[in-house]
Every structure is written in C-alpha cells, then in structure tokens.
C-alpha cells in the first residue's frame, strides 16, 4: 500500500477496522435473513461471497503461483525452460473458451485428467483400499487382545468390525439369483446380511448427521457471539 494511502487511512476520523466490522455484521445479518425467505439482501451477500472468493483465488494464483514462475523463466530461461512449456499448455487450456480453437485445449486437459486420475487411483489403492483391508484382518481371539474383560471387549469390537464390513458389502450386492436349494439358501443369507448392513449404514449416517449438527452449531455460536460482541463494542466505543 502506498504512503499516501496509508496517510489517508491514518487521518480518517474513525478506525478503518470499523468499516470491516460493519461490513461483516451487515453481511452476517444478510445471510441470516434467509430464515425469513429469499430477499435481495441475501442475494447480495451470496453474490458478493462468490465473487470475492473467486477474485481472491484468482489473485492468489496469479501473485503466488504464476507470477513467481514467470519471473524465474524470464530471468533464467536456460534453467527454467520447462516453465515455458507449462505456460504454453495453460494458454492452450484457456483456448477452450473459443469454439473454433477449443480442440487445442484437449491436450492439456488430457494431461490434467490423466495425471490426476492416475494419482488419485494409485493413492486410493495404496492409501485406502489396501491399508483398510489389512486393518480389517483382526484376530477374533480374546487372548490376542489382552487378559480378562479387556480381551473380550476388543474381541467383540473386532467381531463387530468384521460383521459390519461383510454386512455393508452385502447391502451393495447385486447379482442374479441363485438356483437350486443351495442357491436359494445363499440368496436368503445375502438378503439378511444386506439388511443388517443397511442398519449399520443408518447408524453411520446418524453419526455423520450428529457431527454435522455439532459443527454447524459451533459455527452458529461463533457468528452469534461475534455479532453480539462486535456490535456492542461498536456502539460502546464508536464516537459517531
């Protein structure tokens, strides 16, 4: 910020922080007004939020991602020649907005999608699937977990883990019905296990709902306390 701007702000009769606080209070009330129904204040706050978020992300990307690398490329092109390639791919990607040249953006888009998908898939396999499968293989013997009730408690926990895993997998089991007495018996078993799996899913979703409710209540509490404390401070300490 330039010296003149800083001096102008310092000479203001009131603290510039007050403007930010007033804006925060008004925007918070505007968002809360949605309780009464859709209104122009809520729409204004909504559009402002989206616009500021996009602008902030764009400014951050330019100032801290693109510009430093561009400066490096221009300062030392022999060393950072590959940045030119990346910038070229980025420009080609932007051409997707022009219908006649949209096909040129297929290459960088393909690189993006392919690389991201490959990394995501590999990470999901090694980081989630294999690790979780390995963790699901737990001994059901109480003696392996400790002595007395502690061992039995852990064994029960391991049993529930195994049962829940199989039951939830059965809930998503879609296959042609088996024939014959053995097939019919298998169908009934899978159906019963799937029904139990859906109960497990309901409990899981209930836990997620409870966590979400707690989280949102904490956010509400924070906003309400902000409104009250800042608002009271404004009226208590403001001179205008």
């Amino acid at each position, binding site marked *: 910020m330039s010296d003149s701007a800083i001096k102008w702000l310092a000479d203001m009769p009131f603290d510039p922080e007050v403007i930010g606080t007033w804006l925060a209070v008004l925007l918070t009330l505007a968002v809360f007004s949605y*309780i*009464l*129904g*859709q209104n122009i204040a809520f729409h204004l706050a909504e559009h402002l939020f989206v616009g500021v*978020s996009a602008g*902030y*992300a764009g400014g*951050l*990307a330019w100032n*801290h*991602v693109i510009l*430093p*690398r561009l400066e*490096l490329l221009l300062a030392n092109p022999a060393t950072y020649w590959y940045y030119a390639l990346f910038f070229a791919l980025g420009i080609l990607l932007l051409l997707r907005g022009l219908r006649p040249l949209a096909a040129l953006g297929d290459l960088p888009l393909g690189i993006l999608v392919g*690389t*991201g998908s490959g*990394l*995501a898939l590999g*990470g*999901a396999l*090694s*980081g*989630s699937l294999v*690790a*979780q499968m*390995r*963790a699901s293989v737990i001994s059901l013997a109480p003696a392996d977990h400790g002595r007395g009730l502690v061992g039995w408690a852990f064994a029960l926990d391991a049993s529930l883990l195994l049962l829940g895993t199989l039951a939830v997998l059965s809930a998503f089991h879609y296959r042609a019905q088996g024939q014959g007495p053995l097939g019919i018996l298998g169908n009934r078993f899978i159906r019963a296990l799937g029904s139990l799996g859906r109960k497990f899913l309901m409990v*899981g979703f209930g*836990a*997620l709902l409870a*966590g*979400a*409710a*707690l*989280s*949102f*209540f*904490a*956010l*509400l*509490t*924070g*906003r*309400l*306390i*902000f409104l*009250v404390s800042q608002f009271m401070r404004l009226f208590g300490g403001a001179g205008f």
Partner: protein
Amino acid sequence: MIVCPVCNHRNRADAQSCASCGAPLTGFVYRACPSCGALNGAEQVFCHRCLTELTPIEELAEEAQVQAEAPVSEEGREAVFEAECAALAGEPADVSEPSAREEPTRAGEGALIEVAPELDTAAQGLEGAPSGDEERESQPAEVAPPEADVSEQTEDPTVASEWEAAEALEPETGEARGAQVGAESEAPQAGAGEAQDRRGEEIEPAAPEGLGEAAAPEAPEPEQPQAPQMPGGIEVEPPPDEAPEELTDQDALWLMPQEQRMPDVLAPLAEIEDAIPVETVVALPHRARPTLPMGPSDADRHDAELYQDIAGAPASLSSQGPIQPRWPAAQAGRVQKRRLGSEVARTLLWLGVLLSGLAPIVTGNLTARWVQPREAITLASDAVAAISAEDTVLISFDYSPAYAGELDPLALAVLRQLADRSVPMVALSTQPSGIGSAERAFEALARQMPEYAYGYDYAILGFLPGQEVGLRLLKVSFGDAFSTDHVLGQRLGELPVTQNLTTLEDIDHIILLAEDGAVARRWIEQVQPGSGIDLHAFVSSRIEPLLQPYHQSGQIKTLVGAANGSAEYEIASGAAPNALRWTDGAALFFVLWVIVAIATNVVYMSRGEPGARE
C-alpha cells in the same frame, strides 16, 4: 385348437383331454385361431388379431359330444385324418369306416381349423385358381365380416350383412362359403343358393358396398364341381359329392381362388399377371368397435385444479408460500390444523437453537467445570506434547473462513502448545482460502507470544496448487513446490526455519487442519504411505466419522473433532479457554435435540400408521 388350461399345450379342437398332461378340456379358457394361431378367449367369436371367425363353443361342445358318442376307433380317426390330407392334396379319399364321414374334418396335419359340421364345404364352389401362391396358405381361412356381430347373427339373421350372405353355405348342396360377394343375382348359379347363416336360417344376400366398382366375376357352376387348384399349380381331382362335407368352410375359402373370394377388390388387377396376392385381412374393410371417450372423474378434476394452483403460483422457498391447494372439505380442516402445528413447531425449534447459541453470553460458563477430556483427546494432546524442539512440524491449514468459528480455537490451542516448546513450524495450504486462516491463526499467536518470530520459529509457505500433484511434488522437492514464502517473499533457503528443508523427508510431523474429508484423504493417500511421517488430524466434527477408519488402522496418529473436542483439548493441553466458553450453548443444544427427538417420535407414534391416518 384348444389350449389346455393346465399346461398350455395346444390340442385339437375335438380333443376331450389334453394330449400332454391328460387334463380334461371341458373348461378351457383359450383357443388358438386357425388362421394366425393367436390365442383368443373361449367366448370370443372372432380372432382379435386377424378377425377370423371362430367356431362357437356350443358347436365345439356338440362336436365333442358327437365324437364321444361315435364309436370311432383310433384307427378310424387316423384313416379320416389321412383321407382329409389326401383330399386336400387332390388324392382320392379312402375312408374305410362310414362313421368317419361324420367325423369333424381336418384340413391337414398342422392346420389350425375350427370345425363346423353343419356347414357345408362344397367342392362345387371350388374352382381352379389361375395360379397357386403360397401366400394363400398363410391367409386366414375365413374372413370376418366387417360389421359382424354375434348378437346380430343370433338375434336377427334376416338383416345380416353382405358378408354373412357371401359366406353362408347351403349344407345340402355343399357350396363354399363366401362364394359370391356382391353377386346376389348370381348367387344361386354360383352355388351359394340361399345363403344360410350358421344356424341354418336363410338370409338374403345383400348388395355389396364399398368394394369398388368393378363388376363381379362370373360365378362357378355348382352342378359340376371343378377340381380345386392347389398352390403351386397342383391340380386336385374333384372329390366325390360327400367329400365337400368333410371340408370346413375355412378349407373351402382357403382353396377358393382369390378372384372368387374378393372379386370386386381384385377386378382391377385381373389383367396383371403374377401379381402379389392381396392379403385378405388387409384388403377387406374391417371396422373396430368404437369406444366411448371417458370423461374426467371427480378425482381427476381435483388433481387438475391442484396442479393448476401449484403450477400457477409464484415459487417461494419460505414455508409460508402463497400456495393454497384446494382440499376437499372433509380434509381441509385436518390439513390446516396439521400445517399450523408444524409451523409452530418449526418456529419453536428455531427459537430454541437461537437461544442455545446466545446462551454462552448470558450463562457465564456454567457447564465448563463438567467438561472432562476423553481418553482419545488426552492421547492426542500427549502426542502433540511429545514433539520436541528438534522436530520440524508441517501444518496444513485446509479450512476456509466459513469453518473458522469451529477450527480456529483448536488451531490456536495446537499452535500455542507447540510454540510453548519452541517447536519450529512451517505452514501451507492446499486451499486458496486456507492461507487466510493460517495468517489469522499466526497473528493471534503472535499477539499472545511476541517472542515467537516469523522466519526463525515459523514460516508460511503459501498456497500449494495441484491437489494430488502438488502433494506429490512436495514429497520430491520443497523448492519446486514453493520458490518463495508467502509473507516476506524470500526464498526458502534464506529463512532460518526453512533453509534445511529439501523434501518432505525433512519433516517429522504433519498436522492437518481440514474441513473437507476429500482433502484429508488426499493427504493420507498421497503423502503418508511410504513416508513414515506421523499425521495428526484436527478436523471438523462433520468429517470426523469419515476418518475414524484411518485412525483405527494407524494411518492417522491422532484424530480430534473440533466442535466436540476443542473444549476438551484446551483442558488437556492447558491452553487458553476459547472453545470452553461455548460449552453452555452446546449443552443447551443437546437438551433441545433430545426433546425434539422424543417429541417427534411420540407425535409420530400417536398418529398411527400412515394408511390409517388417511
């Protein structure tokens, strides 16, 4: 053919029991059309597909009765069957048993024909066709009159249509059915004689209508029956006088040349050689019985009005929308009462939540002393406390300002706990808005601990773009991921806290502050495997259940949900009470939640089943 009601096997029309399962066929439900094979109900007179006239059930019963009474041996039946086949093929019939002549005739093996013994199958009516064509075999043996009606036939045969007249036969002379269409003056010469309906009553052959203006062809001579012309030009010897009685009317019609069956229709085509024969069913007019249009019922009118109200009213997201559907009077009062009740309940719920959120301002931490940290929170606090000053900690601020109210207190508690032991910290974010959260948290820490200096004790690297790719790059090289820091803009090698950082291997602990489960999983899947670095997750309570499996498998060393764990963590770590001041509101909210859950269940159960309520 009669379809067995037990096994659906198709049996002969004169069968008494099913040839497949032996079940009696007296009460059969379906029978197959002799022309097209379509299944028709037992009571149907015409085939629903090709409109071929079907033998009435009474006649079938009479045939069955006759067959049952006639002492016919199996050999006799076979002989008759062979005779009929021979008759169709033009060979002289060889009927050994006289009683076989009384048997219902069959057109041949595989044919689907209903039997009408009193109907004459005249050989005199059969004349040689100009050319045999195979389509004739697929044509229905009998064409249904366009306005045929069973009631008309049975109640008032004198006003039978022209088609009935054309199809009527004289049993004594054995003339073919439908020999003359539109040639009522020539009908006697053609052998139709006096047209007869199925009941043997005489009907006047009516003048044809709508069949074109072509003149009717000359009728065949009835006195001297000609040899029928089979498809393919096979000449058939004229059967004896008794033979026509063995052929059904469908057979006669089938063997009759097209010109005689449809003289007016085919007259324009008379001069065309080798013309594709016209499909009888398609050529002859047949009229479907008109159905009366059904008007809307009262329920339909009510639904239409309701739809009009809903579609025409302006949309509103508020529960107090202007839509007022018109309910029936009996339901209007109940619906109104129910709506008012739900409105009151919803308003009370909102007020309860609002008061719970404002409670900490008024109550003054009444419940703070009851808060006891759980074992998991204590272990998490101990794990963070075990980080020494020689270790370098990487903190990822992956939450936006929207979740600052929940995660800021926990983040500040963790930072304070680390800063108290002068643990060097390096902060970054994989979300653009997370950098602001990092700046805010470290500004608050700097206010509490001014001696904790930027660049020496901590640094904010900035935004790490690329999601999975960025995290993989971080594992390879810090310098490629961040050329400069976020605050001072200096290169990483120039800051004391980051000058020794080359790759992720130089980091000893990772603390993750996240609001989104996908972000947390990204760290777990891309960074944690193979690196051996301890990952501590302090996340929003919204995603804590999603990360529990990773915590139980050991991929996450510590897991704390912010909304329900911040206050406990502050007690366990001895940090300044920020979240602890909100426990009164959380307690009131919990009580409200329980009351609402109990009340809704009681109300729901008191109403009974949904069907019973209506």
